[in-house]
Every structure is written in C-alpha cells, then in structure tokens.
C-alpha cells in the first residue's frame, strides 16, 4: 500500500462521510441529527484529552474548564450586541464583548485560542506536577473557572447563563472541525514530535536523559489539547444554544475521560469508535430514565440509572480490560484490507 493510494482512500472515506451527512441532514429527524452532531463534538473533546493523557501521559481533569472558556468566548462573539443588551439584564456586558460580533468560524477559533491561552497560563505552574497531583490541580482549575463564570456577571451573565445563541453549528461545521482535529492530531503523533511525547509518557526520566526538553513538549501538547477542548466546548455551546455555569461540572470531564479510556489510551481510532458508541449509548440510556408504557402498563422511569450504568461500564473496563477497545493499535488501510482479504487480497 503506497502513500498515494492511502491518500485516495482517505479522500474516498471523507466523501462517504459527506454523502452520509447530506443524507442524514435531509432524511433524519432533529433528535437523531442532534445525536450525530454530538458524536462529532464528543470525538473532538476525546481526541484532545487523548493527546494530553493518552499520548503525553499528563493526567488532566481540567477539560470542563477549557470547554467553558471556549463556549463562553464563542457565544459572546456570535451573539449580536443588541441580543447581549437584552440578555444582560442586571449589568451590561464589558467592553469588547458589548460591541463586537464575529462570524461563527472566527468565534470558534477564538474560543479555542482563549482556552489555549488559559492552558499556557496554568500549564506553567501545574505541568511541573506529576501524576495524580496534576489531575487534582487541573480539576481545581476547572472548578475555579466555573466559580468565576458564576460570579462575573458582566462577562458571563452569571448564573443566568447565555440563552438564544444563534445555532450555526450544523452537521457540516461540526464534522469539518472534527476532521480537522483528527487530521492535526494524527499528523502530530506520527511526527517526530509525537515520538517525543510518547517517550515522555513511557519514561519521563529516560526521555529527559535523551535530551528531550520535557517541559516544552508537555506544554505544547497541553496547550494544543486545551485549544481543541475549547473548540469542542464552543461547538457544544452553539449546538445546545444555551450555556450556564452548571453545565460545566466535573461530570462533563468524566464523560470525556470515559470515552478516552473506553477507546484505549493512546489510540486515536479507539477514541473515534468509543466516541460514537458512548454518545449513542448515553442517549439510548435516557429511555431507562423516562417512564415507558408497555401494553397498557406504565413502567416508571428510574432517574439516575443512566449514570449508574455508565459508571459501572467504566469500572468494568478499568478492572477487566484496561487497554480499552483498541489498546494502542490504530486503523490503517493496510490492516483493513488484510483483515477483509483474509491475508491475501491486497498485498
């Protein structure tokens, strides 16, 4: 399998995806389209966490914080000044946000950059910490962001949140960002840069003694992860058309972590697969929580059951199949044809 063929096949796969999206947009109902949208957003978020944790070994629990930054920056930029005037009933919004409005693409980009800026800001102090301390410090960062969002009414409209965000995030935008994220991260981890990241993950001391500037690599990986988390947050906020500080609780980070662990730490293919499976599973489990009428009988819904099942799945994976769906293996066209050609067809 040479490189040109692989590129052609990749393009063909993107074409198939485009046809699928076109058909889905035309024929499926709003709820199903929303789920397909959520899949793209979740994949973006999980890919970014996999870059930070799966490939660089930085156990970060700050995703909800980065997402919040992305979501707020993007929402404040796509809302028109007039709308903002209406929303901010207690105090007017602060200066740059009170007058500017940006196109959706720019707003998402700036959301990501805002998150990346915070990534740099907290990266300097916390990336010196190792393992679980890093986790708890980044978790602390996410909580601080949430408390700030609650208490800075001129920036975020406080606990009231932002409502009526114009919904630009359709299938095309979400999947374009999703593919862009996938492309960037695949390129990155396959490059020499990626090798350095994995060396740091596998043995930090050895990597350092081989002359790798550990802090610099960690910082770049963390910042890039933060950027894509911000992008994911921006898209999510736009998709739901309303955001408030309560949305960015720790459970949001937990969901993303769940996708990464299920897919396999250090496997991008696994993350994409798990992103699809878990998003669908999460939506499907909503049925358990709603009352079902079955042949004239009303079976009451069980609130909370969704997360019970969900956390049990995570526990089972971590206890019995720690490598997740894919381990560290990746999809390749070569492997694909070997699998379907039973070893003969495409050699």
């Amino acid at each position, binding site marked *: 399998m040479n490189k040109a063929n692989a590129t052609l096949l990749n393009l063909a796969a993107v074409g198939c995806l485009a046809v699928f999206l076109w058909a889905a947009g035309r024929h499926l109902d709003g709820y199903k389209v929303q789920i397909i949208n959520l899949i793209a957003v979740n994949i973006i978020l999980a890919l970014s966490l996999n870059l930070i944790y799966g490939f660089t070994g930085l*156990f970060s629990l700050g995703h909800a914080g980065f997402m919040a930054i992305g979501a707020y920056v993007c929402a404040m930029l796509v809302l028109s000044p007039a709308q903002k005037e209406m929303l901010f009933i207690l105090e007017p919004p602060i200066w740059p946000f009170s007058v500017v409005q940006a196109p959706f693409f720019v707003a998402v980009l700036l959301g990501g950059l805002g998150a990346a800026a915070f990534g740099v800001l*907290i990266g300097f*102090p*916390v990336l010196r*910490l*190792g*393992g*679980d*301390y890093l*986790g*708890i*410090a980044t*978790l*602390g*960062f996410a*909580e*601080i962001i949430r*408390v*700030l969002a*609650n*208490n800075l009414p001129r920036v975020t409209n406080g606990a009231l949140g932002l409502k009526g965000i114009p919904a630009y995030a359709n299938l095309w935008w979400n999947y374009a960002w999703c593919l862009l994220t996938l492309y960037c991260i695949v390129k990155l981890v396959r490059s020499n840069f990626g090798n350095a990241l994995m060396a740091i993950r596998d043995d930090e*001391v050895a990597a350092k003694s081989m002359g790798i500037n550990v802090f610099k690599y960690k910082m770049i990986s963390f910042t890039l992860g933060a950027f894509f988390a911000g992008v994911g947050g921006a898209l999510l906020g736009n998709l739901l058309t309303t955001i408030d500080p309560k949305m960015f609780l*720790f*459970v949001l980070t*937990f969901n993303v*972590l769940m996708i990464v*662990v299920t897919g396999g730490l250090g496997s991008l293919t696994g993350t994409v697969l798990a992103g699809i499976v878990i998003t669908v599973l999460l939506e499907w489990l909503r049925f358990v929580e709603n009352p079902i009428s079955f042949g004239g009988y009303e079976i009451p819904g*069980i*609130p*909370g*059951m*969704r*997360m*019970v099942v*969900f*956390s*049990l799945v*995570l*526990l089972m994976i*971590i*206890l019995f199949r*720690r490598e997740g769906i894919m381990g560290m293996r990746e999809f390749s066209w070569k492997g694909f044809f070997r699998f379907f050609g039973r070893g003969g067809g495409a050699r």
Partner: protein
Amino acid sequence: MTSSMFVQHFLNALTLGSLYALIAIGYTMVYGILRLINFAHGEIFMLGAYFVFWGVVLLHLPWPVAVLGAILITALTGVLVDRVAYRPLREAPRISALISSIGVSFFLQNLAVVVFSAIPRQVYRPEWLTKVMIVGKVRVLPLTLFVPALSLVLMLGSIYIVYKTKPGLGMRAIAKDIETSRLMGVPVNRIISLTFGLGSALAAASGIMWALRYPQLQPIMGVIPGFKAFIAAVLGGIGSIGGAVVGGVLLGFVEIMLVAFMPELAGFRDAFAFVLLIVILLFRPTGLFGEKLEDKV
C-alpha cells in the same frame, strides 16, 4: 465587627474546620498507604448521613443507635469499595486506580439518586443539639460545641490507633514500603481494609455531623466537602494525620473568616480552596508537615 459576632464566626469556623479535618484524615491515610486519591471518599461521607436518615425515618431507631449503626455500615461500605474496585488494581499503573475511584464516586452518587432520589431531604436533629443557648451576648447552638468536641475525640482516637497499636504500626510500615512490610509478615490486605474502614467511619461521622449543621441531604452533598477535605490534606502534608487535622481546621477558618471580613467575596467561597491548592502545590508540594517524596528511577 463586634466581639460577639467574632465569637460566632470563630465557632462556625471551628465546626466547619473539624468536619473537614475528619474527612481529610481518611484521604491522608489512604494516600499515605496506597498513593491513591480516593475520589469516592466524598460519597462515603454522603452515605453516612443518608444511613442515619434511613435508620431514624424508616426503622424508627433512636438517634444514637442509628448513628452508630450508620457509622458501622458506612465503614463496611468503604472496605467493600476497596475490595471490589481498588484491590484488583494494586499492581496496575497508579492512575488506573484513580480512574477506578472516580468511577466508584459517580456510581455511588447516582446509586444514591436511584435509591434515595435526588429530592433534598430534611434531617432529623435531636432537640438537645438545636436548642439555642445564650451565653453572654452570643447565641450558640449546642451543636457548634458538640461537633468540634466529638471530632476532637475521634481524631485523638484515630491518632491513638495509628501510633500506639499494632495494626497502626502495620499501617505506618506499609506507608513506608509495602513490599518489605509484606516480607516482614504484615498482613497487608487486612491492614489496608482496616485503613479503609477507619477512614470511612470518620467520613461517616463527619457526614452525619455535617447533616446536623447544614440540615439537608442530597446525593451530591459529598462532592464539594470531599474535594475541600482533600485539599486540606494536601495543605497539611499528605500522609500525615496531624497535618490533615491542622489543614482541615485552617481551611475552615480561611473560608469562614474571609467571607466574614469581606462579604463581597461570598460568591467566590468555593474557589478559595482550589486557589489555595494550586498555590501550595507550587510553593510547597509536600504541605506544611509532609515528608518529601522523591521520584524513584
């Protein structure tokens, strides 16, 4: 600020601080031994409070009996959690057990939503704890004296167990070096179970008293106190029981006094602890009384 108001704030801070301290002891003991941040500890705290509620409301037990029963059952839950979710991962990378504990935390929280429902519950409070006493110009609930006093007793009890008894010696040995302790004949798994039991019992006691002080039960009530108590443990120097106590009380005072003297910061109250955490980790990662941990190559 008048002196009577100051006394009031002082007592509030002492109450809150001692509740943090009790939870922090559990964190610090488990971290000292297994190097595991037990995320599920906040949920153990919550379960303790709910079990008392059940004992009093459903089984009509007298309050003291319900409290003792709840502490016992919560301690067993803690042991069970370790047995099921952490012990199989002893040889795995450390972060696996951490993720497992996050899973347990969400599991218990949502199980509580399923079993107890998410509707906040009113807590039964014995009358002798809630009758307002007026001492001089200060209005005091017996509660605000009872909580620190009982906490002190429990803390002294756990310090006695860890430093003066044989199982305590085992705990300290495992904290130093788990493999060598095993070779020297310390029943490692049993001692670890005991540690979880003891830590969970303290968390349950704290949860029960928390529910007396802030009388509302919710499945998520353990999350924020849990995080803050962990921060208290880091502040004091993780692994050190005395450090956890000092850290907990200190955190209680910082929270109450900052809001008391600067009411405009009240909305940011939940962020203090986290800012404090990042500052400590930056300048003194071993906390106030912690031993230095070195990277082993």
